[in-house]
């Protein structure tokens, strides 16, 4: 398997007034293409910071982040936009759908930014929401909305899918469905899926588990045996 993501001595420092805080402190690791990665850690550990840097929402204070052989740590704003448009798909705890667009339109909008976009209807079918394509997000349940946001992330046909607490607002059953969708993407389509969560159990479906504490990597493990999302006990 080939290496797709590489963090080299990455530090992210936040300064507010006199205080400086290293949300990430000299972090280095590598991730394999097509793997499911779970990032665990207590609140304030730096998980979201890690994900945001990887997703190009922010740039590191020092160190390098290499994705697909390309250093993204000092890209300009526009280059970062292009990187987000072509390479990563985001899924957040709060689905962040556009309320005034229908399900289908929410997914379709990525067509405007990437030439790689795949058929939005296919993506909706994949997450099991084809019948709801003309509904507005407000008319769907939380889990359904989350799956729309996955479909939107997928429609760009990105290499990497980044999820910050994707099941945080869902019950266990819908949570499992969402996770299953993500797992299938890695297994069947070779996408690299990074999931940030509080939930230890989710680690059981991961190929790689990263534990973060106080901005540092506490442990980095590769699982030999992974469970299917539906077999996880919540």
């Amino acid at each position, binding site marked *: 398997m080939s290496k797709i993501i590489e963090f080299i001595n990455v530090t992210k420092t936040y300064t507010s007034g006199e205080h400086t805080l290293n949300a990430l402190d000299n972090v280095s690791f590598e991730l394999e293409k097509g793997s499911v990665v779970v990032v665990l850690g207590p609140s304030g550990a730096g998980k979201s910071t890690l994900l945001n840097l990887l997703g190009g929402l922010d740039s590191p204070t020092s160190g390098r982040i290499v994705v697909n052989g390309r250093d993204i740590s000092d890209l300009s704003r526009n280059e970062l936009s292009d990187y987000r448009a072509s390479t990563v798909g*985001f899924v957040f705890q*709060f689905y*962040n759908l556009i309320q*005034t667009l229908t399900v289908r339109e929410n997914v379709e909008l990525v067509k405007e930014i990437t030439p790689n976009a795949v058929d939005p209807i296919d993506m909706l079918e994949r997450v099991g929401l084809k019948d709801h394509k003309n509904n507005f997000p407000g008319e769907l349940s939380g889990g359904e909305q989350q799956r729309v946001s996955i479909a939107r992330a997928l429609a760009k046909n990105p290499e990497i899918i980044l999820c910050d607490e994707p099941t945080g607002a869902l019950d266990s059953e819908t949570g499992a469905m969402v996770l299953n969708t993500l797992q299938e993407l890695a297994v069947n389509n070779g996408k690299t899926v990074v999931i940030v969560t509080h939930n230890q159990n989710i680690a059981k479906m991961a190929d790689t588990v990263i534990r973060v504490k106080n901005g540092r990597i506490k442990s980095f493990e590769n699982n030999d045996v992974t469970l299917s999302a539906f077999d996880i006990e919540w």
Partner: protein
Amino acid sequence: MLLFKKLYRTLFKYKSQFISMILMITLGVGVFVGMNAEWKSLKTDSDRYYDETNYSDYWLYSENAEGFSREDIESVKSVKGVNMAQRRLTVDTVIDGLEKTVSLNVYDEYLVSKNHLVSGEDYDEDKDGVWLNDKFADLNNISLGDIITLKYSTYSIEAKVLGLIKNPEYMYAVENETQLMPEFDNYGYAFVSPDTFKNITGFEVYNQILIKSDMSKEELEKELEKALPVSTLLLERKEQASYAMMLSEIDEGVTFGNLLPVIFLMIAVLTMITTMRRITVNEKLQIGTLKALGFRDAKIIRHYSFYGLFIGVIGALLGIIMGFGLCRMIVNPNTMEGTCFDMPYWRLYAPGWTYIVTAAMVLMLTFISFLSTKNMLKGTAAQALRPQTPKKVKTLLIEKTKLWNRLSFGTIWNIRDIFRSKMRTLMSFTGVLGCVILLVAALGMKDTMSAFLNIMYEDICNYKYGVNIAENSDKESVDSLVRSVDGDTVSTLSINMDGDPYELDIYNVTHDLYHIIDKDNKVIELKNDGAYVCIRIAEKFGVKAGDNISFKIYGQSDEYDVRVAGVVRSIMAESIAISEKYAKEKGIDAPVRMIYTNSEVDSSDYDCVAKVETLQDTIASFDTFMQIMYEMIIIIAVAAIILGIVVLYNLGVMSYTERYKELATLKVVGFKDKAIGRLLIKQNIWITIAGIIVGMPCGKALLAYLISRLAGEYELFTRINWTTYVFTFMLTMGVSVLVSCLIAGKNKNIDMVEAMKGDE
């Protein structure tokens, strides 16, 4: 005080909204107070002037050379209902050395239309000297104690300047009707006592009687007809140029004051309603928290209502200051109104009710915030704590069409947003609409005036010099002058139709130097087949070509019956035009008033020439008038643009804040700043275009209304050049794009990480 601290923080948090609201109210109240203070000040100041000088109510003009005798004035005085009457002689003289016209007045008694003393001694009929208009004196470097010589006919009246004065009859003083604006340095007026005049000229003649009376014109006319042997011309105040001009200026002010501020005030209130509602919706959680903390509803409501009160009071105060500032720009002895009127008083007054309306407006604003808050406080604390659920999006009709699926997501997003926030959209639309209406009307006003001047001086007047003929000139010498300069002539008579005075102009045009125009501003030939009546007369008497119309000439008893040959546009006077040949046929004869010519005439070479004016000079006198017009237009245009900017900016910020999360999402997904900016600008542009499309015809309608109200005494037309439309379009579009870009620029600062975190 916890709430007080919060108040301060909230004001800071919504500073751009609060500033927009304050600006809108300042602008609204400012335009409202300013425009109404303008006419109120003119009215109060001129009334004070009239009262102080005991300004005459009626003027009686003698039509014969002997003027009014002692018996005449006694009979007028004895008429029941006449409170005061006095004879007056007014003649045009030329001031020696300067060769400028000075209108000389001799009062047999000094009771009515007295002078306002500026400096020196007050008028005294026992003193030998001259009292001169101060403005004319200043502009010509004449001071108290100087000796001036006024030439009248063959006499030279030499006297010492004893006092500098103003007289209300010369408040708006133009030398003759072709001038629109007074030229204070070229035309003055003076007073001498009857004794002084008699000592020099050896005669005593009075061609006018000034009357103070509470009777109506009809009553007085009837009484005078009985009292006096001959028919005379009686004019009331509003038929005098000076009074009429002031009256129309005040009327104009009332029209503007009642119309334009409404647009501004309405938009201010609407802005307030939308903005306050948005703020309280945004603050719902805070409001709920306060409620949950145990604050009473009343206290919370009071707290939020205070915002409205605060904004209202600050805006109103600034507005009143701005209003008086605006008013001072217009009502000012040295600028706009000052170039038109010569008045001693220039104090500013706003009508009392403007303060009441302003106060009511502040109360209303407080009430608006009260209502908005009350809306948020409905139900229990728990309900109040829940964020306001966004309105459910409804499927629009157009979505059923095929076209819909072809639209880009940005277009779809914007269309839905427009329909979701109807009130906000309506507000932006109204703002643009107001801006466009004002611009089109203001610029159209300029177009109309230019077109009018063009027609006047390109089509109608085709001569270089206008030679004014002195009264009682010898007919032979006038005729020989006409021949020697290849001139065309006009004679003017006052005629009476149904009791009202009109003008009869008799033209002898053989050199194509003067034209008349029809309703469509086309030059037409004045034939010898009848009378060409002006549009106003045609409408008033319901006549058209082929009908007959009859009139009497003042000072004569014959009634003339003429055939109407056509309807023409007479821009200034309400008049009937006939050819000299037709006049002869009907037996009407009148002395030449003016010769139109292209040859230069030196007034000192001919006794019969009172004055020669070049068309160039007359055109120049309009320039002053146009200057005032431009200043007025600039004020309105600037106000319109500020209005547009403030409304669009305020609503733009609102829409941006509301869509903040969605914009952040788009950014996360990979949209570039520019692309997001374009999405934001798109919506503003649509609304702007809609506003422009609707606003242009509305602006045209407003202009037509204004012209009919303001220039009802003229026969004007409305003209809007295509350049005005183009300019309005570009200006409005420019404002809209500029504001959009300012707002679109904000999206650079969107904190994606922050925005993705959660709901609050």
